[in-house]
């Protein structure tokens, strides 16, 4: 049984793979940022961006387009992808379910309900819509946690069942709101929000979103060791000293905050939280926390690229979830095929 000490080779191979993958995703992210800055209704060149950044001569319009539209939009798409990729990885680990995504415990349906309430009941100004979606997402998550506490069965299956219940409740309320909504404006606004978009992204919105996102991100990163421990069977993690109930709620709360803080502004974005972790595991062939970080960068790149396509492939902006679904479905099919082949 003793293993021959060929360790240095194995260590080097793992380190090399990680270094290459992180370098590649970093380079892709830099490239995607550049495209995102340059491409749009008012095209900008790399020289013009250089001039804006380093104090050169550029017209005020281009300066405004870059600083007030392109940068907030690109940063927001990247942060949203980072949040979805990281939260998706964390959810897949702690729910021990490769199909888990941030909406498994009702975050998305709660945010959707919040947005629908803002549109139909309060008239739907942009900030109100975002705030209402944010509150809706968090509220439904905490109701799921409260339901689990009420049942006194703290297993992950109970969380999933409570998520299904709250999702159904939220969706029935959304249907009711749609029924009473004005079909010309309100209904269209609800539908459009549920397909996600990075249009109308501004620096002021980013300034509101960023601190909340940062708190969620910091919480998840600080609790990274606990995330790995929560991936074990419950008895095993308890016997390794994890106070499962409290730690699980903490991890869920921080990852939900990270997702809700961005999704409330962008609208729902499909598939990124599901496929980014799979891509990360496929490339790195590991399942530790650095892989979650890699998944978050993959999520960021996917959304940056999807957003560039969303604003270029048609004369009007295409909702982002249409594109992420078109990319996500083939990936999901590929993962199913691999799993059937016993290679997952």
């Amino acid at each position, binding site marked *: *049984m*003793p*293993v*021959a*000490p*060929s*360790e240095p080779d*194995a*260590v080097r191979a*793992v380190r090399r793979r990680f270094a290459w993958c992180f370098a590649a995703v970093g380079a892709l992210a830099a490239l995607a940022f550049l495209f995102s800055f340059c491409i749009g209704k008012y095209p900008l060149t790399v020289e013009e961006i250089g001039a804006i950044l380093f104090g050169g001569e550029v017209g005020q319009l281009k300066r405004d387009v870059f600083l007030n539209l392109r940068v907030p939009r690109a940063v927001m798409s990247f942060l949203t992808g980072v949040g979805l990729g990281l939260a998706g990885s964390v959810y897949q680990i702690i729910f021990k379910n490769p199909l888990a995504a941030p909406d498994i415990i009702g975050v998305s349906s709660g945010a959707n309900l919040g947005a629908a309430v803002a549109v139909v009941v309060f008239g739907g100004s942009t900030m109100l819509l975002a705030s209402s979606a944010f509150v809706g997402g968090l509220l439904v998550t905490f109701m799921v946690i409260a339901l689990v506490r009420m049942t006194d069965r703290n297993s992950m299956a109970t969380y999933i069942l409570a998520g299904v219940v709250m999702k159904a409740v939220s969706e029935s309320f959304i249907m009711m709101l749609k029924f009473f909504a004005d079909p010309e404006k309100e209904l269209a606004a609800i539908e459009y929000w549920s397909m996600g978009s990075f249009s109308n992204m501004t620096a002021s919105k980013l300034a509101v979103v960023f601190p909340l996102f940062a708190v969620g991100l910091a919480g998840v990163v*600080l*609790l990274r*060791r*606990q995330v*790995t*421990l929560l*991936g*074990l*069977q419950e*008895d*095993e993690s*308890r*016997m*390794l*000293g*994890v*106070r*499962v109930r409290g*730690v699980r709620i903490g991890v869920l709360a921080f990852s939900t905050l990270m997702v809700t803080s961005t999704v409330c502004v962008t609208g729902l974005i499909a598939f990124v939280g599901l496929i980014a972790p799979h891509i990360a*595991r496929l490339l790195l*062939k*590991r*399942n*530790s926390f650095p*892989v979650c970080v890699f998944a978050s960068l993959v999520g960021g790149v996917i959304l940056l690229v999807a957003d560039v396509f969303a604003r270029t492939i048609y004369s009007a902006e295409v909702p982002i979830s249409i594109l992420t679904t078109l990319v996500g479905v083939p990936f999901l099919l590929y993962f199913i095929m691999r799993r059937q082949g016993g290679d997952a």
Partner: protein
Amino acid sequence: MRELLRLDGLSAGYGKARVVGDVSFSIREGEYCALLGLNGSGKTTLLKTICGLLPAQGGRCVVEGVDCTSFHEHKRARRLAYIPQRHSAMDGLSVLDVVLMGLNPHLGLLENPSKAQRQACRDALAKMGLGGAAHRDFGRLSGGQQQMVILARTLAQDAPVMLMDEPDSALDFLNKHLVLKNIRDLIHAEGKAGLVTLHNPNFALTYCDRLLLLKEGTLVADVQMRDSSVQGLEKALSDIYGDVVILERDGQYMVGLRPARCPTS
């Protein structure tokens, strides 16, 4: 030798149903005890109650003189380590990552292992003969090697009491012997108190220092191996398994049912 684990009239069960009643015994350092009994006798229930995974219905569980019955998980894990029947799937985690988990009871919620602690984990792996595997994917090791890594994790946890629920259940014949021998050697060398549930009495007789026999939720016998003759062992085991015969050769035991008493279907 110091007494490390003591049960004082511990009762256990599920809800109001009592499965194990009023069990008392103690285990000293360096002592490896097997908990034997038929299916449904309450072995796993008793073990889980000692671990705190099930609430005790009565009595106390004392480790190194301190009553742990109402300790929370983090505090309890510093005193009691547990090896489950089947460990979790940890595919994609490195072997060292798995061993590092054992440090959790000694770390704060947000604290990370120090260099010295990481080195201690590498040393624990080396003790189990897996010094060269720290960065391998845990999911790609054999069942026996994985159980050795779990043992190294228990060593890193550094709790005075080790509780094991059929740690050999997923292993082939040779690995069963290897794992149970390594557990025994570890308990003797590190001066821990070990309590293991086993289905197969052959392994218990061969590797353990002491047998605790559980029948219908009651402790019916407490047998020290070094003081027992084969006849004495046959008499004790017959109480739970029926009329048994035991053959012994070079410290290895073979327990069988007398042909006339074999159960018929």
